[in-house]
């Protein structure tokens, strides 16, 4: 049953989201060149940053599990990874709808987009690995090690793509997205990012709870078998 703190978190999240919506669609000034479509930026970019934070949380939790072998860290790691996938999916799904009207193409393999897609694939790989291992300790250990490799890999992938694109100059696409932003736009962007972060934290409570329940069920099943 939903506890009181659940409702409080949901309430705060809702308030922030509604405010973010107002800022995005009503308050923030219209962008000169792209017009109304530019507003997609305010719910396209923030999920990416949340996903990036999610992977960092998952990484740190994984490492702390390896060190302490406390399963609560493993629960946090998978809970965060799942949300990372959701937010990164939002990021990837909204992007093409902005690109198509503004640049005439749905997608391009520049450093940012390629890295975003690789990040998404890494989340998928992580979650599939977890389903493929039954033994809890092994599952937690292997997942944690995977996250370490993926985190280092993700950074290197971004750097490699930057190097590639500096060598093969491409039409400047996402150039200066964050640069030259009107202060009102900055405010909206920061607030929207905060709103998505709060959403992440709110959902994290639930995903952690799910994992905790799943573990308890696993343990109980074993007990029942042994009785």
């Amino acid at each position: 049953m939903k506890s009181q703190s659940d409702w409080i978190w949901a309430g705060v999240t809702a308030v922030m989201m509604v405010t973010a919506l107002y800022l995005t669609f009503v308050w923030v000034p219209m962008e000169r060149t792209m017009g109304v479509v530019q507003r997609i930026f305010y719910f396209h970019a923030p999920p990416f940053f949340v996903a990036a934070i999610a992977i960092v949380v998952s990484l740190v939790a994984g490492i702390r599990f390896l060190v302490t072998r406390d399963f609560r860290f493993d629960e946090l790691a998978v809970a965060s990874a799942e949300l990372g996938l959701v937010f990164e999916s939002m990021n990837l799904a909204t992007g093409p709808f902005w690109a198509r009207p503004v640049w005439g193409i749905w997608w391009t393999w520049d450093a940012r987009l390629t890295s975003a897609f690789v990040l998404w694939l890494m989340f998928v790989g992580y979650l599939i690995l977890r389903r493929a291992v039954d033994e809890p300790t092994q599952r937690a250990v292997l997942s944690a090690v995977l996250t370490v490799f993926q985190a280092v890999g993700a950074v290197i992938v971004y750097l490699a793509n930057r190097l590639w694109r500096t060598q093969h100059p491409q039409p400047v696409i996402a150039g200066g997205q964050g640069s030259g932003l009107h202060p009102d736009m900055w405010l909206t962007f920061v607030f929207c990012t905060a709103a998505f972060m709060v959403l992440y934290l709110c959902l994290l409570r639930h995903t952690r709870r799910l994992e905790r329940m799943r573990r308890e069920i696993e343990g109980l099943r074993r007990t029942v078998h042994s009785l």
Partner: protein
Amino acid sequence: MEENLKWLWYAFSVAWVIHLLYVVTLGRREAKLREELEALRSMVEDRGKK
């Protein structure tokens, strides 16, 4: 301008559809797990009493 507005709505809808679908599946998973947890807990209790 109107033309571009539709892209804004598409993007908005997609983001929210993903979010809502996820929250719904989250809710269903939680309900299912809770059910299973209750069942197992009572099973352990019963066997313990025997």
